[in-house]
């Protein structure tokens, strides 16, 4: 008990002696744990709103999209053809089906709003409400002749509201209402349903102006059945229908779909989606955010390790004498290591709790289910395993950065620890020889790097991680430029917009951590090289040369770090993007990223370097002599 008290007392006293360092360390780990908490809290966040939407719209358990190989829909045709009717018959009489709605005609159309052109599937519906899958109108009214209802996310992307005028396949329509549905995933994931996709044929997709509309993201609209039939008459292919099914056991919806496919191996042009599949496609909106946040959180953790390592390393050097004193009064190496570790582990624990709280509070800001669903996500899922993982990550960060110097300090002999105040510098003969051929600032900088190669390596790693994040963001933007469905027609993509917002947050976190790291490293270098710098000034180096040397000591490892970040960043984006297309950013972007990083490092190093050369050389050398 006495030992625990001693360890706690020494740790608390050290924190009180250097509160600024403790706060910075806390901030570095808390930033990483907040990002990690956000990434973990997004898991399953759309489930609750989807269930609310499903209840509000009497959502179906299975949605079947049916198409036949027959010829195109004729303007006067009132009912589905025999092939469609046979599929409908098979489905509505299948075991477990208790109710159905439809089949509703599905027409592919080109929608034009002011400044925007996009592809849309138009579902022909009765003005009377349906018992199964009746979209919830959130603004305006339900369909009427000449009046269409737009799915809410799609309407937002088009930038239109109730009362606005649009054209469908060149015919004028009025936006009668805005609605949400649980029967299909909202724009831009309409075609991402498990086991199915968009089946409505498009007019003129072979033409150069409309070629991108049939393959990219589609929107959903509802119109009256006569209007839908008119639109379908200009379709390029056979007609498509949608049929909604209610099952006696909704939990067996996916099993129903599988059983239907097994029983009808030649199911023609029909695709069945279970409500669970639609729910999963709804989650794509947030899934992309997770794909951004998760690797970002681990990058932030790596940067936090670098921050803690530099800070802890510097503090270990200061605490060598305490190690000697502890050993002199009978402290075992284990006790010494515990004293040295306790402070950082306690700070890491506090940072983990702060990160959990900040992540939990910030999660609602990024876990909006999107306009495609009604309801709210509720509190983020901060489970015990999530909290455990965040706390473990924070402790691992602190341990990874502190354990080795703590054990090394614990093994130091008592006499050495009591006598020495600073670690002896390392000698790298090759670097010293090379530096003699360089201009004075580079000579001084390279020799500082040679004195503390591990710190330089840490600096390079830190810049590499930051550069990795920046290049991954650039790769995202380069790839997003190609993915921006209908970008040429002015249509926004809510998934990309949210991804961009996430990336901006993440970039700010990574850059903030990198800034802390550069300042920590520069300051540690300034303190460590104080005597050497004073001596160099006494021997004739100007303060400018010494400051430039200190900046060079940061820039020399930063350069390879920044360059290494290029392949790592592209690799990280490729890994996060899964099987998706990866576009390598333009060379000019990459060069700008590297130069920008180096300029930032130089700028951030200048202040500590200038402060470091302000103290008179005579004073430093005099105190060293004493």
């Amino acid at each position, binding site marked *: 008990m006495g030992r625990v008290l001693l360890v706690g007392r020494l740790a608390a006293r050290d924190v009180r002696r250097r509160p600024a360092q403790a706060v910075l360390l806390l901030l570095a780990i808390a930033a990483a744990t907040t990002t990690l908490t956000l990434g973990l809290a997004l898991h399953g966040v759309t489930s609750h709103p989807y269930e609310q939407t499903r209840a509000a719209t009497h959502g179906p358990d299975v949605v079947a999209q049916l198409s036949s190989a027959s010829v195109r829909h004729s303007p006067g045709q009132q009912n589905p053809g025999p092939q469609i009717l046979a599929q409908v018959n098979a489905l509505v009489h299948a075991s477990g089906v208790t109710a159905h709605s439809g089949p509703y005609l599905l027409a592919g159309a080109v929608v034009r709003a002011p400044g925007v052109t996009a592809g849309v599937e138009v579902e022909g519906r009765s003005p009377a409400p349906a018992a199964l899958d009746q979209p919830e109108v959130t603004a305006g009214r339900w369909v009427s002749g000449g009046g269409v209802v737009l799915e809410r996310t799609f309407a937002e992307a088009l930038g239109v509201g109730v009362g606005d005028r649009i054209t469908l396949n060149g015919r004028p329509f009025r936006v009668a209402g805005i609605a949400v549905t649980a029967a299909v995933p909202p724009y831009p994931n309409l075609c991402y349903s498990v086991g199915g996709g968009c089946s409505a044929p498009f007019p003129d997709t072979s033409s150069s102006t409309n070629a991108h509309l049939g393959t990219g993201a589609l929107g959903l609209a509802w119109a009256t059945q006569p209007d839908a039939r008119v639109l379908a008459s200009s379709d390029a292919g056979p007609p498509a229908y949608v049929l909604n099914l209610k099952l006696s056991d909704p939990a067996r919806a996916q099993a129903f779909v599988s059983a239907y496919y097994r029983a009808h191996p030649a199911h023609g042009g029909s695709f069945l989606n279970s409500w669970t599949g639609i729910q999963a496609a709804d989650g794509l909106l947030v899934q992309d955010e997770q794909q951004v946040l998760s690797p970002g959180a681990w990058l932030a953790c790596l940067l936090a390790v670098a921050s803690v390592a530099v800070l802890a390393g510097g503090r270990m050097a200061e605490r060598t004498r305490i190690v000697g004193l502890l050993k002199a009064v009978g402290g075992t190496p284990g006790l010494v290591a515990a004293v040295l570790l306790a402070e950082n582990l306690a700070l890491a624990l506090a940072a983990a709790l702060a990160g959990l709280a900040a992540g939990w509070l910030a999660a609602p800001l990024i876990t909006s289910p999107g306009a495609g669903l009604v309801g709210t996500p509720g509190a983020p899922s901060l489970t015990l395993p999530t909290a455990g993982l965040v706390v473990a990550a924070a402790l691992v960060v602190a341990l990874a950065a502190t354990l080795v110097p703590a054990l090394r300090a614990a093994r130091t002999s008592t006499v050495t620890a009591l006598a020495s105040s600073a670690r002896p510098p390392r000698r790298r003969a090759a670097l*010293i020889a090379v530096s*003699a051929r360089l201009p004075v600032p580079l*000579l001084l900088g390279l020799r500082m790097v*040679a004195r503390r190669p591990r710190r330089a390596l840490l600096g390079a790693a830190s810049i590499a991680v930051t550069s990795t994040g920046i290049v991954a963001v650039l790769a995202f933007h380069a790839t997003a430029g190609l993915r921006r469905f209908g970008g040429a027609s002015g249509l926004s993509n809510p998934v990309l917009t949210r991804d961009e917002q996430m990336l901006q947050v993440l970039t700010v976190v990574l850059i903030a951590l990198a800034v802390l790291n550069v300042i920590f490293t520069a300051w540690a270098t300034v303190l460590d090289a104080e005597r050497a710098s004073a001596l160099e*000034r006494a*021997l*004739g180096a*100007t303060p400018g040369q010494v400051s430039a040397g200190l900046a060079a000591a940061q820039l020399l490892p930063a350069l390879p770090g920044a360059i290494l970040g290029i392949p790592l960043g592209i690799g990280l984006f490729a890994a996060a993007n899964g099987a998706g297309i990866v576009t390598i950013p333009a060379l000019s972007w990459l060069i700008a990223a590297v130069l920008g990083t180096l300029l930032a490092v130089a700028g951030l190093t200048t202040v500590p370097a200038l402060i470091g050369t302000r103290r008179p050389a005579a004073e430093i050398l005099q105190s060293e*002599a004493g």
Partner: protein
Amino acid sequence: MNEPGSTAMVQARGLRKEYGKAAGLVRAVDGVDLDVAPGETLAVMGPSGCGKSTLLHLLGGLDRPSAGELHLAGQRIDQMSERGLARLRREAIGFVFQAFHLMDELTAVENVELPALLAGRSPRVARRRATGLLERVGLADRAKFLPSALSGGQRQRVAIARALTNDPLVVLADEPTGNLDSEATLDVLRLFDSLHTAGQTLVIVTHDSRIAATADRLISMRDGAFIDETRLTGGSTGHLGALAGLEG
């Protein structure tokens, strides 16, 4: 005393260095007038805290005076910019410190060549000069040794070699034997004697009466001011030099 514009290598008039304010004001150097002729060896003695080291730092441009004028080789230096003072230290002044102040990670020869590299000499020229100086101080065989592998006396000889690297007008030595045993002290004394013989201007701050005895002139200091000045006519080759064991 010489007047400004005279032939003095170092000349100070009313030199003052103050620290603190009001009741806490400390005059480390209090209105010192000083002339050091070219080739002269001047010793400054006095108790600890009397301002000897501060005076040396002022003379070497490592610190700025609070008042007074300071000239080196006829050039006024007390109002020079930091950059100008750095150039002055590089080209005209050599420092020898009590604590040696060698770079721990550099070998003896690398330490000696450092001022030449800072002055922009080519690595080859700097190395040749450093090697020659190490021979001169009797450490040619220790050129590749790190300071940690050298004795105290050897380290100070390396530091003296470093001070001579750029052929300074004046060498300023602050307690150069303060950390040395008797034998090492004698080595350093012999080295200073050879410098004196070669016409090097030397200002040595010391507690050690033996090293003071090798000087041409001895100034005693107390509370920041000169209280006594003695011209040692024998110098290092005369009677006092003999007492110090230089003829032995």
